[in-house]
């Protein structure tokens, strides 16, 4: 499958260690192509923090055959923006929110880009390598009631 993909999209390159690197602005086109070829199952969208850049990894599989594709998108740390794939899979919604929650990666056109696992008042993005493991956070009772119950 990766051969076909490389032929179709000249900008998709295979790196030395066998990763399929996709440009950020091409990700929707590549995913649409894959979906039409029968890769209809979006397993996960994961972020990863490398020293110079951030990576977004798309694991795409199929409900009917054992093939799998792993796409990698590299984006700069200063401006981590890439288009959302929620228009192709609704299931991407939560995965992208998680990547935003943990790495601060922004997805352009996402219907509701907010924190999902951590409280809204959280400061920083914990899965970045620069985030210290024991950073103290101030947590208060959030939203609706507005009554502060306790602080930790």
């Amino acid at each position: 499958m990766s051969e076909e993909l490389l032929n179709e999209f000249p900008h998709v390159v295979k790196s030395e260690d066998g990763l399929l690197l996709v440009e950020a602005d091409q990700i929707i086109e590549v995913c649409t192509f894959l979906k039409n070829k029968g890769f209809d199952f979006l397993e996960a969208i994961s972020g990863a923090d490398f020293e110079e850049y951030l990576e977004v990894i798309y694991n795409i599989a199929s409900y009917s055959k054992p093939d799998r594709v792993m796409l990698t998108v590299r984006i700069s740390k200063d401006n981590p923006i890439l288009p959302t794939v929620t228009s192709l899979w609704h299931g991407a919604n939560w995965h992208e929110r998680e990547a935003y929650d943990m790495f601060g990666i922004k997805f352009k056109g996402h219907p509701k880009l907010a924190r999902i696992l951590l409280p809204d008042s959280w400061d920083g993005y914990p899965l970045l390598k620069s985030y210290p493991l024991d950073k103290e956070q101030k947590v208060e009772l959030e939203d609706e009631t507005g009554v502060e119950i306790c602080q930790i």
Partner: protein
Amino acid sequence: MDREYVTDKIRRSMGRRILTDEEVSGWWIIGGIVTFGLLFLLLFLKLIHRRNEHFKRQKMLEEQIIELVGIDLKDKKMLADLKAIHNEGYESGEFKDLSFLRIIPAIITLGLYIEWRLTKDLMIHAERQRRFFSCYLGRELEDTTPQRPTGKYLGLGVVTLGLFGIYWTNLIIKDSNEHFKDQWKLEDLLPEAGMEIDEGVDPDFYKNIILTTVDKFLNWGRTCSVWPMAFGTACCAMEMMATFASRNDMDRYGMIFRNSPRQADVLIVAGTITQKMAPRLRRLYDQMAEPKYVIAMGACAMTGGPFVNSYSVLKGVDKVIPVDIYLPGCPPRPEALLNAFLQLQERMKEERTVTKKFERWILKDRKEVVT
């Protein structure tokens, strides 16, 4: 072990003396004789008297019927049968009004046995304790508990038909009271002296017989129906469910899960509490009615457990709510949770809600007088 921690525990044990070392008044003896003895005497007399009266009436009735049949003299066989039944006599023979007093020797024997054991135990206990504290303090303490010749007393009790037992009971009450006083003095001599009791508690209130009895009654009710709140967040919830399911059935201890905090007595924090969850936990705790207890189940609830290094995990629920029982394990087995509940029941038996409420009320009054 931390020295301070153990000292703290010793002080807590000393503080418990208010609850355990109850001073008993000699008036109990007279009270016992007057209420228990006389009431039962009256009751028994009444019961026996009633029985005898009823039997007498029935006997007369039967005799009259036989007489009537004799006058008619139609059915000879029936007359003979009636006479035969009538002559079978009383149900279990005669029962004179005062014959039940025969039971008194038995009561005297039992009473003398109890008194003998109490006296002997106290003497052995006092002697052993004197040696223990002498050893700890490094100097010989004097023996203050009087030695009683138990054998002689036993003989006297038998000879005087138990009358001596009344005097003996008085001695036991006096000796124990003095022993408690001596020990309190001794405890205050220890280098770790100091009592850890609830703030502002006046020990006098704990001697009040009405308040303590009401408290004990309430505690009995509470310990027999501990209703925990089902608050399982993670792995420990599985073991919590297993504890309440078929094999380790907790219902037999009167423990039934409630899903609303307002109906629950115990909050089992089963599982990891994250910083996002902590305010919710606090709110649930606040919604529970007093008196409430908390069991921190598992390593996560105690300290953060394996996730203690994580950025989002609360390092022990005691940062948010007070905890009564810490239950280690990852996760603890159902048997361990069962044991935690039994320990909690022991803890609940020491609760003095009414006493405290009364005391607060009195103290408030006093303050008003002062100002």
